């Protein structure tokens, strides 16, 4: 720490949030959102995950270097660093596992639609395709192969009934309003417009909440 750092710390002007802290906030928000919504959300496009993965990798290297040092003072810093590292890894792991669970559940739904496919990262898409391939081949080998060829597809839409299962976008979600906003809500008996104040926590359908969350007026809780 040099004099600039000390000045920055006591300077009331620059209460700017550092990039690291903002990344943690974005990661946390992305994780909570992914855990709460019925459908897969778009992969964060601003390179958030690449950045965090890089940092985790570097931090692990640092821990490996520091473990050789047995000075009790740095030893405690090492414990703190490792604890935090585990917390970050938990967030990342839980986020990815949630996404995989959603992709697994509605595999064809996400691969067959161009729009939805862009929500997956490259690795996720490759995983989804391979998974679907294995599954379909397995079905073909075990029972589907004995069916007439016209009935061996898994994505028939004959008779206005689609074979492709899709998530229920009207499921109830909990959101917190980050700004005052008017929400159009769809209900069974009535449709209503809710004039929400900042900080309100509302239960409503995901299809109604989606626009607000994408605009940044609300977040999932």
């Amino acid at each position, binding site marked *: 720490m040099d004099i600039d750092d000390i000045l920055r710390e006591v300077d009331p002007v620059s209460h700017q*949030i550092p990039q690291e802290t903002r990344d943690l906030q974005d990661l946390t928000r992305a994780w909570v959102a992914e855990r709460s919504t019925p459908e897969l959300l778009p992969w964060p496009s601003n390179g958030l995950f690449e950045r965090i993965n890089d940092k985790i990798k570097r931090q692990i290297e640092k821990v490996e270097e520091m473990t050789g040092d047995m000075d009790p003072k740095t030893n405690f810093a090492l414990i703190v*660093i490792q604890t935090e590292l585990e917390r970050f890894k938990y967030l990342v792991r839980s986020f990815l596992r949630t996404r995989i669970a959603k992709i697994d559940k509605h595999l064809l739904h996400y691969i067959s639609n161009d729009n939805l496919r862009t929500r997956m990262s490259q690795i996720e898409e490759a995983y989804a395709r391979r998974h679907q391939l294995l599954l379909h081949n397995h079905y073909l080998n075990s029972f589907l192969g004995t069916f007439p060829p016209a009935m061996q597809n898994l994505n028939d839409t004959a008779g206005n009934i689609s074979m492709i299962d899709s998530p229920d976008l009207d*499921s109830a979600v909990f959101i917190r309003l980050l700004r005052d906003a008017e929400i159009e809500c769809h209900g069974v008996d009535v449709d209503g417009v809710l004039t929400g104040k900042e*900080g309100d926590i509302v239960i409503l359908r995901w299809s109604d909440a989606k626009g607000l969350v994408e605009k940044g007026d609300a*977040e999932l809780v």
Partner: protein
Amino acid sequence: MALPLPPGLTQNEVAFLAEMEMVTVVPRQRLDSIDLLGGKTPQLRPPHRAQLPLWLALLLKKQRRANIVPPAWMHPASLAEIIHRETKEDPEAFSPPPPPPSRALYSQPGTARRLNPSYLDDFTQTQQDSQQDPNSILSPPFLPSNVAESPAGYLPYHWLEVAEALLTHAGDDMPAPAGEVRSLLRDLVEVRAAKMRSSTSALEGFGDAYLTLRGVGAMELAENRAFLAGLVDGVRKIGASAEATRREEEEEARRGGDYGGDGDEDSDEDMGL
């Protein structure tokens, strides 16, 4: 490999989130700044107070390297005030969340501005002052609502988890005997649990589009999430056909109106001809 949990945060996950809340500590020994993934920790120099995330504060507390300053809302007087408000003043609603934090402006001495920019603020002014991205609005657990300076008389979003953690691991730092704080908290939990249960009667018509729970806490939400979401979803599924019929009728009525308008225009044209 895929996560087997249903949508919605569980209690454990909420507790994990609550550990990111910032709290104020009084260090008992020096500790240099540590370069963490979430940003550098402040340098600890006794007896200067510092703000740290709860998980780190608890770690320091367990090793007797620091004492935790409990947030102002955890003082017995503040808790008693909240209980009074919840039971006497407004027995229907939850007590309101803490007011949004503000900061004094450097460029305009004497003016205060909210930490979170809202639509009403002039964004250019905001950006000049802090070079902050107008889209990055802070929300719990990243708002400083559990530090020593946070206002008394308001329950922050993660109140139950933070209070529980502080009472368990830092009971000797409490402003009053831990037992007293604990019994006040228990009263509060019970009052609010009853409200949570009766909040579903707001859906009495079984057809409302939304349910507002202003001031509810994260843990209370996590406990009741499955029940509330199940209720709302169940009502929707039972009423799905009635809703579809209603929508069709509304659509028809609207289209009927449009046709009427078109007809008028036609007749006008006819008259012109």
